């Protein structure tokens, strides 16, 4: 099936593609939108980051041993954790520990299950599989994680009265935070649920498109897409669950008291 030759974009072709960014810049200027600088800066970042990661992947693929693959995954996880953290204005107590451990357990566990037991390629570190699959799982779970953490913090803040009212009536911290926990968890899963429902109709998912472009039979590409969406949903669910379950406790003392702000 993979006998189709993909066109290796050369520099001239890339420069022609970049002309579209210049067109966007011109349109922005014409409309006096004033975000030309941002647009230019983002496009430059995109350019250099992708070229860098391309060569890095090239290197990792060439070495073909577990250590660089694992290091690369850890670096990706670290960066996305940092991005998730910086996006949140009001962080819950022990934010990094709660979110970090949830991501390691949630994403790590799901990635392990998915790559080794579901797809079952070997060797286990094969970068052609592990890096894109783990990358997608981590990236999506990170979005869920930041949504869960952010929503939990804001719910706990807005519901102080309700929580203290419940505590005063003899509720445990868990019972008093029930609504906040539920809403945070649901907010974290919402985008994944929406994506699943819309996928294939509203947009063709990136991975599937990529596989088709590189010559994979669409039926197989679709199977991969279904599998990865399941893995993403699982990773988002487990990670967000761990975040809200660990997270709400950080707002209370052992004696079921809501900590001061």
């Amino acid at each position, binding site marked *: 099936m993979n006998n189709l030759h993909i066109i290796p974009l050369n520099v001239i072709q890339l420069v022609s593609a970049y002309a579209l960014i210049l067109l966007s810049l011109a349109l922005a200027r014409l409309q006096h939108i004033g975000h030309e600088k941002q647009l230019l800066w983002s496009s430059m970042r995109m350019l250099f980051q992708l070229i860098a990661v391309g060569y890095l992947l090239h290197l990792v693929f060439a070495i073909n041993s577990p250590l660089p693959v694992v290091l690369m995954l850890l670096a990706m996880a670290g960066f996305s954790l940092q991005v998730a953290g910086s996006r949140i204005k009001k962080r819950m107590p022990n934010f990094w520990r709660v979110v970090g451990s949830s991501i390691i357990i949630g994403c790590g566990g799901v990635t392990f299950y998915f790559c080794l037991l579901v797809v079952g390629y070997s060797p286990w570190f094969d970068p052609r599989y592990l890096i894109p699959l783990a990358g997608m799982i981590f990236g999506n779970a990170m979005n869920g994680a930041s949504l869960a953490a952010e929503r939990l913090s804001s719910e706990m803040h807005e519901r102080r009265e309700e929580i203290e009212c419940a505590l005063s009536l003899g509720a445990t911290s868990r019972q008093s935070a029930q609504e906040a926990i539920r809403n945070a968890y649901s907010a974290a899963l919402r985008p994944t649920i929406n994506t699943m429902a819309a996928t294939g109709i509203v947009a063709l998912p990136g991975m599937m498109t990529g596989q088709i472009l590189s010559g994979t039979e669409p039926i197989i590409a679709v199977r991969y897409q279904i599998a990865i969406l399941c893995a993403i949903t699982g990773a988002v669910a487990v990670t967000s669950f761990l975040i809200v379950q660990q997270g709400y406790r950080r707002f209370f003392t052992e004696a079921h*008291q809501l900590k001061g702000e």
Partner: protein
Amino acid sequence: MEQTSGNDPLVEFIDVGVTKLSPAGAIMVILDRISFTAQQGQITGIIGASGSGKSTLIRLCNRLDDPSEGTILLNGQNIATIDPLLLRRKIAMVLQKPFMFEGTLLENLQRPFLFRNMAPPSAKSEEMARVLDLVQLPAEMLDRDARSLSGGEQQRVNLARALVNHPEVLLLDEPTSALDRPSTARLASTLSNICHNEHLAIIVVTHDLYLAEHIVNHLIYLEEGRIIEQGAGTQMLTMPQTTAFRNFLAQPERKQKSSS
């Protein structure tokens, strides 16, 4: 709920203090060596200007907060050694703003039972009749959406909900702050009835002299975290012993309110 035998249920504060760190890192004294006793069948009133520490004080009783120093006793037992969930059933608290959980009035009254994983009493049960009677809410209201009730009605639900656990002590934080004068008068007589019929110790924090004048037995005046004066309510109001308390009573807003 098991009834304690022997001693009168009472709350005793012994040299209780609360200090907090200010954002700048300085130590702020919120409450300083607070000592008093709240007796069973009596209403203890805590009055003072806002910022005097009275809300902090009442939050210590059911351990929404813990003191930095000193001891609080319930029936002679240090409350720090009582399971907070059990303590909050014995010492019920009515928060300043009546928070209504989503659902009907009945569901709001059933909440405390659900928190204890117990089957809640039905609308027709004796228990519901008892609490509704105590706060003078008609049983027909049970099906109403709790959040659609008026402020005064919500305050009654708030009170009834605190009473379903058969507490020994009832704490109220500024219960009249959102009420007009007639509603305040009604609440005062309700509290007075509850105190005598249920034989509770009631501790009420207020800046409103009406409650102090009409139903409070033991009055405590708090200023900047210290007890300036305490004693029998009516006596203290007619013959204040300290200049600070006299000044507090002389503030025009209080004169107006108490005479209206």
